[in-house]
């Protein structure tokens, strides 16, 4: 199993969720993060004091999934989150060794 972590633009969250649902993904976990990267933030002025906003609000999605779904998930996210502009974000894939569903104690793929 894998964990697929995606950092995307916040306003794309709904689209990404929708296209993940289409390919049968039923669960995921979302967190708010700030991204530093190539994309630059805006400048705010406060009574003559200038602040470059360096962090950009991003959303982080974590999806635990079976190995055979990984490519589909990546594709679904890539398509839905793409705007072609800098700052669209990244997808990271890491190995998931074990998963347990707390309610039932099930483990492995059936716990997803």
């Amino acid at each position, binding site marked *: 199993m894998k964990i697929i972590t995606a950092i995307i633009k916040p306003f794309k969250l709904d689209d990404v969720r929708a296209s993940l649902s289409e390919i049968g993904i039923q669960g995921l976990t979302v967190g708010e993060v700030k991204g530093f990267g190539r994309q630059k933030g805006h400048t*705010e*002025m*406060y*009574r*003559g*004091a200038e*602040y470059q906003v360096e962090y950009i609000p991003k959303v982080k999605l974590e999806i635990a999934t079976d190995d055979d779904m990984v490519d589909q998930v990546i594709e679904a996210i890539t398509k839905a989150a793409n705007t072609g502009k800098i700052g669209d974000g990244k997808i990271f894939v890491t190995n998931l060794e074990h998963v347990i569903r707390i309610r039932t104690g099930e483990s492995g793929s059936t716990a997803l």
Partner: protein
Amino acid sequence: MKIYNSLILALLCLSPVHVFAADGLDSGDTAWILTSTALVLFMTLPGLALFYGGLVRAKNVLSVLMQCFAITCMVTILWVIGGYSLAFSDGGSMNDWIGGTSNFFLANVTRDAVNGTIPDSVFSIFQMTFAIITPALIVGGFAERMRFSAMLVFSMLWFLLVYLPICHWVWGGGWLSQMGLLDFAGGTVVHITAGVGAIVAALVLGNRKGFLTVHMTPHNMTMTVTGAGMLWVGWFGFNAGSAVAANGDAGMAMLVTHISAATGAFTWMLVEWLKFGKPSALGIATGMVAGLGTITPASGFVGPMAALFIGFSAGIICFTATVFIKQRLRIDDSLDVFPVHGIGGMLGTLFAGVFVASQFGGAGLAEGMTIGSQLMVQVTGIVATAAWTGVVTYLILKLVGLFITLRVNDEEETQGLDIVSHEEVGYNL
């Protein structure tokens, strides 16, 4: 008897404002000053507290609210003990400089005592609210870094040694009032003293760690705008209440106050739009305070057209001063008290000397005064107030600093005053 009748009636008919009973009390005037008192207290709590509180970082928000609150309480107690007396009672041979002790513990403020057309109790509490807001304004100069205990001692001494004498000079029959200084509602007494006090405190305490390099954006602009709205409304009591009557003077003071606030705000917004590309909520709110502070000394003397001009000038000049002090002088008068209140107060005190003239739609110069001679008086008032405030504030801080550390240490500043000084946090959302 007939003659007496006629006399009374004549009096009734001539009285410019209102009929009142033999003891001089007028219920309408009293109603308005009771209301004004509530409005001016509202300016400090929660008005100014919110205006300032929103501008600091979240980790210091309670410290600012707390400072405004504690100053309110402390000044009240000092006012009762001796403040009212030193500001407003007759100082005898010292009367040029300071009032006397006859009203210590509000000795003569009895249930029946009358002051003009209102009860003396009402006059004394109305004036108390001015005494409260002035040191509270200074909080903006040393925000986010002063220790709470040092702040209390400093504010106490500052109130006794700066506010009370200057209040007596201008409004209590002291030398500036004898000279004919025009300061309707506190351009010198409140705004210049607060502005100069704040920047001196900022200089003595030093800039905040990371000033102009790390992010120090307002943590809650909605709080600041809320406070700004309250200040605007409360200022009606401040200026129109200073007529100490519900009459045409009060009405005109409210009208010009409002016009100057609106014009100052709108002008600041436009200047910002032109210079920085975007008009901001902080800008419009700051311009409003500038417009209000600037009209304050002039509010009882000038007409609507002058108010437009005064507000407009406030918007331009206070804006320029704010940017200059921050970007050029790099002084961390953290919430810009000097450029807004100090400069605004000076500007307004000058303008009062000009626009009071009847040819500008004002209430008219005092007998024997010309615009020139009035302006000389106004300049004297400004210089004396600023100089006394500057020197005494500096000395107080140096003195207090001998006994109490004025400023939190670096680590505490990083952690924030809310936890460090009050073991509390603003938000648990």
